[in-house]
């Protein structure tokens, strides 16, 4: 996929890093020294048949994977203008769309999407750059990961079995001496919850879920190997569409009638409105900050209502935040000598 990446590497800091084309960004995360993008694509391979026979030979396969770009010392500029491919998961089993990234300052976790098979989960990476495959089971009745994240040195995943049972699986891929060895520290805890797909998230000592999204109830708890501790319910108006675990509690995207809202939740219990509008926003959460793309307007929040920090030059397919920084992606078109070209450009800004 190196064809995808464009932009000349530069010794000086770059204000933007880009891909050629409009890539399908499933998720993105800002870490201390890099920006990670999870992309997804369906690749159609077409070849002419031999001897002038009619019709091409064609087949399709699916891909999801990560691209990374480093940040310079200010952590508000890129160290070069190009992304580098890191992980690649390819399959003919079915689409891998809808994946999620979880991250801490150093490592990240790819939870691939897809419904055809149980999606794999990959942790990246050991000091020598080796990935660890945390979950990979191709059996038709394999349990499916419906959410998860990084919690200190533990990776915690919520899986639903074919019989509907839900477990919290904890492991420590970062402690493995051999990336392919079984994880002796792995534990499974049976949960008495039933969250919808994508309606459970874990991050740095918080677990949030909703098993009644239409009822507008979100639960917040502290996860452990034995399962979540005592959970606190927080009510929100409307239907829960997506949620994120975050420092201090969680963030939830809801819809009530025509109005979309983003709330910050705490286990007090309390909720605080971050943003409301009539257009579904693109939301990114990280390290206590919330970033929202309202059309081309980039807004951020450290605690209160979201405030505008920038205006993108094109549609924003994804964005993410990390404490005092925000990163967003713009879909650009540029006229060149041989016609219009498309680019996906990443930019960085400060959270207000």
């Amino acid at each position: 996929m190196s064809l995808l990446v464009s932009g000349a590497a530069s010794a000086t800091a770059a204000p933007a890093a880009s891909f050629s084309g409009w890539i399908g960004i499933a998720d993105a995360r800002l870490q201390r020294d890099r920006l990670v993008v999870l992309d997804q694509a369906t690749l159609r391979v077409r070849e002419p048949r031999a001897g002038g026979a009619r019709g091409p030979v064609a087949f399709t396969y699916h891909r999801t994977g990560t691209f990374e770009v480093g940040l310079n010392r200010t952590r508000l500029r890129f160290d070069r203008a190009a992304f580098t491919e890191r992980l690649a998961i390819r399959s003919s089993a079915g689409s891998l769309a809808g994946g999620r990234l979880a991250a801490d300052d150093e490592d990240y976790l790819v939870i691939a999407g897809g419904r055809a098979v149980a999606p794999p989960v990959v942790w990246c990476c050991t000091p020598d750059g080796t990935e660890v495959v945390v979950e990979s089971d191709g059996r038709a009745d394999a349990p499916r990961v419906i959410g998860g994240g990084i919690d200190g040195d533990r990776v915690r995943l919520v899986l639903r079995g074919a019989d509907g049972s839900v477990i919290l699986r904890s492991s420590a891929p970062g402690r493995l001496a051999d990336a392919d060895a079984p994880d002796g520290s792995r534990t499974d805890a049976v949960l008495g919850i039933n969250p919808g797909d994508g309606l459970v998230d874990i991050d740095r000592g918080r677990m949030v879920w909703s098993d009644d999204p239409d009822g507008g109830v979100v639960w917040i708890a502290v996860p452990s190997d034995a399962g979540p501790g005592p959970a606190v319910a927080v009510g929100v108006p409307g239907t829960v569409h997506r949620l994120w675990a975050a420092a201090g509690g969680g963030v939830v995207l809801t819809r009530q009638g025509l109005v979309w809202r983003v709330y910050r939740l705490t286990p007090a219990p309390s909720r605080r409105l971050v943003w409301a509008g009539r257009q579904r926003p693109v939301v990114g959460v990280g390290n206590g900050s919330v970033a929202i793309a309202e059309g081309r307007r980039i807004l951020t929040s450290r605690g209160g209502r979201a405030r505008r920090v920038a205006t993108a030059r094109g549609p924003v397919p994804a964005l993410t935040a990390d404490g005092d920084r925000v990163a967003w992606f713009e879909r650009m078109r540029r006229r060149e000598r041989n016609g219009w070209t498309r680019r996906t450009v990443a930019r960085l800004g400060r959270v207000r």
Partner: protein
Amino acid sequence: MTRRVTGRWRTGAVCALLALAPASGAGAVAGIQDDRLPNLSGAELQERLGLLAGTGTPLTRVDVLWRRVAPTRPTDPRNPDDPAYDWSVYDQIMLGLAARGIRPILDFYGTPPWASTRGGTSAAPPPVHAGMFAGALARRYSGTWRTAGGVLLPEVREIELWNEPNIPLFWRPQCRSGPGRRYVPVAATRYAALADASVREIRAANQDAIVIGGVAGPSGNLDDRGKVCRTGSESVSAGSIIAQLRRNGVRIDAWSQHLYPIGPPARAVFFPGWPTLPRLAPMLDRLRPGMPVYVTETGYHTSYNRYHRYFVTEAQQARWLGETFRLADRTPRVVATVWFNLQDNPRWTGGLLHADLTRKPAWDTFQGIAPATATRTTS
């Protein structure tokens, strides 16, 4: 999001397959490898050999790990009875396979600590040492050698020279940067020297041996044009290895190519795949006209692993296994095709069996194909 794949590999890829001549009539022998065999012994090994035989396979491939057979440097390396050698597991395997009517292809690799400066298993070995080990291997399984207990060991005719020397996992370094940042395929040069030494030693041990070279992994493309060597790990192409074998005048009997296609077997247009395999033919003809091809590894994974990064469903695996062996039959130079592997493990998920030994649908497909190929010949 839909993206169209482009690149140099596209040109004429599928055309080559469709332009193939009709099957020669002989067809290819179907086999399967079980990479656990060298890790077992005694009753466990016998049970495992029974499991392998249960697939109905007439052919298998056995990894002979040089560093395990020769953990210390032999004083008389051509002599299989040198005290430094430990063949005990391999003797059991060869006898067990012979008893079950399964023909093995032996594949030696894995540099012993004493044969490299840093002791790495993938370090390019001194060609002379590797050649003498190949000679000892061929001599021990030449059909004339007896164990210390007087048991006559079976003859093994097909011997592969190393495993995937064009992949840094098995051979380092792959390349260096030459003048003008030119890509210099050092793995090809060193491998050709190893092949040269090995061919001479194997022939001296068993004149009837079939020496299979290349054993090229699914990486590095057909040639090295346009490549840049940055880390020394950028894979060497099959074309460079063939060219170097020709330059050195190495007389291998057959070429081995590993195929792990992305996409259905007949449509997988990346090199190497079934449609692109015939592109090797003109190059191989320069080594020896009509040189046969062994596909000593192929397969499809049914869940993600970090070594291949591409997976299919179990139903697809079963269907495409059938297509694989049908394509092998229609490809005239291909004399044998070996599915890798028998059982899943965390590193490799292309088995006919899950890690817990339950069968995937591909087991039945293989069982329905392999036994009928037993009467075919590779020579």
